[in-house]
């Protein structure tokens, strides 16, 4: 099978040595969403250890990387202290970069993108804008129609964004990071 450089890139960016995992399975046992995943974290570690391009793509195309909540329970219980959440962040960005996306990534990515748009334009989270953008991206128009009016009545929703002055710097931060395609930032 074809070997690939993805594993050494992954190691370089995250500092995680996948060979250190000895498959005890504590991460999978403690993962609250393991049962919803295509394969649980310890299996993902084993796939990485094989070092093949085929298995690497299998990971990028799985829902496992998207369902990881970064709750860090796996890291907390790993006898080798392997930073699986950091690996997950890296694998998600690679999955977006290579456009190898499991369908389960769609609502999750739509949420994150809507969230970041709100911050880019208003400096702070603007929930009304976030939910509107999320609905627009996912066509889930009816979602949360029952709780939104209650939130409003209880004073939990801003009708307008909060005042934030340093918008120029915020735009610059986005332009230099997530919108910058020139750097090798994963």
């Amino acid at each position, binding site marked *: 099978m074809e070997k690939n450089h993805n594993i050494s890139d992954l190691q370089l960016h995250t500092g995680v040595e996948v060979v250190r995992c000895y498959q005890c399975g504590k991460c999978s046992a403690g993962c609250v969403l393991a049962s919803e995943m295509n394969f649980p974290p310890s299996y993902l570690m084993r796939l990485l250890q094989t070092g093949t391009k085929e298995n690497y793509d299998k990971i990028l195309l799985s829902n496992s990387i998207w369902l990881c909540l970064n709750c*860090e329970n796996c890291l907390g219980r790993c006898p080798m202290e392997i930073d699986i959440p950091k690996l997950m962040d890296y694998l998600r960005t690679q999955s977006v970069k290579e456009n190898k996306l499991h369908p389960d990534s769609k609502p*999750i990515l739509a949420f994150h993108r809507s969230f970041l748009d709100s*911050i880019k334009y208003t400096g702070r989270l603007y929930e009304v804008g976030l939910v509107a953008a999320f609905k627009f991206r996912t066509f889930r128009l009816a979602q949360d129609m029952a709780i939104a009016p209650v939130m409003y009545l209880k*004073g939990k929703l801003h009708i307008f964004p909060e005042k934030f002055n340093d918008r120029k710097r915020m735009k610059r931060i986005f332009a230099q*990071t997530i919108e910058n395609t020139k750097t090798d930032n994963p």
Partner: protein
Amino acid sequence: MKIGYYPGCSLTGSSREYNESVVALAKALEIELVEIKDWNCCGATAAHVMNEELSLSLPARIMAIAEEQGLTEVVVPCAACYNRLKMTQHELEDDGKRGRVAEILKMPYHGSLKIINVLQMLETYGAENIKARVISPFAHKVACYYGCLLVRPHSILQFDRVEDPQSMDSLIRVIGGNSMDWAFKTECCGAGFSVSRTDLVAKLSGNILKDASDRGAEALIVACPMCQSNLDMRRGAINKTLAQPIDIPVIYITQAIGLALGIGANELGLKRHFVNVEL
């Protein structure tokens, strides 16, 4: 006693009652909170899932401004913000990353701030004070729920025990409450999936509420706005996953202590919850 304050986005909107109760309690304990000027969002889960440099630059701007303002210590009540700020400080100990972030921000960043969560603020500046001021003991059996972001990763946060934390339980005992042993103290509630995968949040939060309820808890006590909103605002969706609906309230540690100190329910934001609070 003066201390820097970073409320974060949730505390100005969907979790206003957390802000109200932190402010009311600080006032009662004579702790002066100095808000960071023109603060921005920490980027939360979205930034670190999407782009590493963005996830470091957003918290770095907040801390750079606080440093410029002359603050040395900042309390961060939101567990997610607390986690992001602490993690960023840790990541920026790397010279390469710090240099790159300084270039992005065009602001000096020293990494000298002490970042603490609300439990640490209460332990450090309030525990004795609280004890002396209890006028109406909080005589309830409760489950203290810490969630993920306050305690993990332990190697970096260095706060409390990772599987069976005790700081919130101790504070509950100080105000006359009965905090119980239970199994879901640090299990994840589904956090950032509240909008994108409400089904999974309902299932995970349902497991947490059921264990607390089965053991006879009268309330869940929290110190994270995401945990609170998932367990409270999503109660309708949660109850659909359970055989028996659960109606126990989820309140902030600052609200529980505020009640014991005789602060009014309105001032503590207790009317803003979805699940009625009758304690």
